[in-house]
């Protein structure tokens, strides 16, 4: 028995997949794109805001953007003089504004004609019909896109993995009931179901949209998980685990799940794509988030009303396209990295 010289000796499966993934340049570029979108989403308040990042007012230094975040999380309050202040009109000693000095919902009523709303030096990507800055909307919209993608997918994954694993592992009547439930939920036309519920609920919120996309999107994950668990359950090492007297919980969580879940998690990348597209489509039709919230889809929605405002269609469309493609390519790269036939 010779000792092969191998620098990857003792490498776990996870480390191995990461090493394979890094070989895929499309996948790596996509990870960077998603990373940048995530950074933009996290620091959206600092990148696009109608308040200064730092300002000096009557000899005192304020950090209005930081204070605003505090207010959002309920750990700080506006001083009385700022609560209703028009930040643009205050007489600062000096002030540093964000890169895009507009909040996504602040309107600029002076912009009347199409020409004034087109991309220009002050509004780089133009504004919509009520003077809201498109770039600011896109920056803040990345928050909604990512959170809808991840939250909806988490809900769908949790339900799908649990139900699929139960059906696949225990089989018999349990499997029969869960499989029929999956078939029943699949037969609902998802889009119309969500539109109907959103129409019935008076105050549509972002959470409602996320929840609905998640609650209707778990079926294919459950099916996939069931199939994987069925496959893994019949492998010899599960028989070995049974023969060694391991408990059912241990067999499920230590032996079956880790080997069944990887392909399902890859599927999650595509699920995020479908959730983002779903929200965009809903908002585009005007059924999605409330009108005060600016998402990529709702900017697109504005393009329907003003045909000649090409910037309202192109820029959000581009953002959706790039983000969705990046997630798709990550999913592809992960699939290739875990596929034993493509190893080298």
């Amino acid at each position, binding site marked *: *028995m010779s*000792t092969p010289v*191998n620098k990857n*000796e*003792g*490498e*776990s*499966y996870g480390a*191995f997949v990461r090493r394979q993934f890094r070989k895929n340049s499309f996948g790596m570029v996509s990870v960077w794109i998603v990373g940048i979108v995530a950074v933009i989403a996290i620091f959206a308040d600092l990148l696009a805001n109608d308040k200064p990042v730092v300002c000096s007012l009557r000899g005192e230094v304020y950090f209005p953007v930081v204070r605003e975040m505090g207010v959002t999380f309920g750990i700080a309050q506006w001083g009385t003089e700022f609560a209703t202040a028009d930040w643009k009109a205050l007489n600062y000693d000096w002030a540093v504004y964000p890169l895009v000095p507009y909040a996504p919902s602040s309107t600029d009523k002076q912009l009347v004609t199409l020409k004034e709303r087109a991309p220009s030096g002050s509004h780089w990507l133009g504004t919509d019909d009520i003077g809201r800055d498109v770039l600011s909307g896109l920056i803040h919209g990345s928050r909604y896109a990512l959170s809808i993608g991840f939250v909806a997918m988490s809900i769908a994954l949790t339900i799908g993995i649990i139900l699929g694993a139960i059906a696949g592992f225990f*089989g*018999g009547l349990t499997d*029969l009931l869960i499989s029929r439930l999956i078939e029943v939920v699949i037969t609902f036309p998802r889009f119309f179901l969500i539109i109907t519920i959103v129409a019935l609920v008076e105050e549509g919120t972002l959470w409602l949209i996320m929840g609905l996309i998640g609650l209707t999107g778990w079926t294919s994950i459950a099916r996939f998980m069931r199939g994987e668990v069925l496959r893994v*359950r*019949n*492998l*010899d*090492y*599960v*028989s*070995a*685990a*049974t*023969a*060694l*007297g*391991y408990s059912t919980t241990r067999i499920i969580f*230590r*032996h079956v799940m*880790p*080997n069944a879940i990887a392909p399902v998690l890859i599927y999650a990348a595509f699920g995020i794509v479908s959730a983002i597209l779903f929200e965009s489509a809903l908002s585009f039709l005007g059924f999605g988030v409330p009108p005060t919230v600016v998402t990529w889809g709702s900017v697109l929605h504005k393009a329907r009303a003003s045909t000649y405002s090409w910037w309202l269609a192109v820029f959000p469309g581009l953002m959706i396209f790039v983000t969705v493609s990046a997630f798709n390519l990550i999913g592809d790269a992960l699939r290739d990295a875990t596929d034993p036939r493509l190893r080298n």
Partner: protein
Amino acid sequence: MSEPLLEVKNLRVRFPVHGGILQRKVGSVNAVDGVSFTIERGETLGLVGESGCGKTTVGRALINILKHVAPGVELDGEVVYVDKDGKRTDLLHLSKRDMIPFRSKIQMIFQDPYSSLNARLSVKQIIAEPLEIHNPEMSKKEVDDKVMWLLERVGLQPEYAGRYPHEFSGGQRQRIGIARALATNPDLIICDEPVSALDVSVQAQVINLMEDLQKEFGMSYLFIAHDLSVVYHISKRIAVMYLGNLVELGTANQVYFDPVHPYSRALLSSVPVPDPTRKNVKRVVLQGDIPTPLNKPSGCGFRTRCPVAQVECAANVPQLLAKDNGALVACPYA
């Protein structure tokens, strides 16, 4: 010697067959149809037969995992485990909880070295897990030491403990499987075609390892295989199975050189022997295919292909009877 370890009495295993829209039971496969034999302490019993004759099912019935891997399976008969003090326990009908203490006594080695190891666990984790379950009193250090010791025993370098299964060859993986089976100091190891997935040169290494381990630890093997020369090499006694029944049971020498049952003769004559002194053995070629266990012939299961079949063969299932040369044979005309 001759101290019984496991007594199998009239073991029957039936798998239900479901059909129709409501998945009702429409029939059953008699995979094992009344098999009786005894495994003695420290001996190796070979179990041979062609694919689908039920030999793997017998092995899985003995370690009592059929209920878990095949829901709805019907089990009959007795699998009596006799411990060192002579205490007898029928394992076949024990509940899952009552079975746990006996799990450490009977272990299994599998055919496919690739699917028998969990790819997400390191070799150390794989071998340490049985110890953590069955010997919870052992400290972490003791478990580590035992894992290293076991790796050495099966001929692997202890430095490999941190590696994962995909970094090993088929033969090395089979050694890891053996180490896992050895971890709980079993009295009996069911070897389900442990070498048929390996290269011939590696087969010899693994067989020799298994013989060495048996000398060192004194456990019994039930060695299931379809390769008669391998079984002859390792076994003390050999049982021949056909369509869910034992047709012949005798010492390795008797079954290999002087088979009595017409099926054993046909099976033996099919073995290519690189030995010019045996060339006068007439080749027996059986006609037809093995019948489906879903619909077995009445009486003797072998009668449809048997060269010496009589009319009476359809009436009764032949019992194992002692012949002149000491073999137990399930055929009154042989």
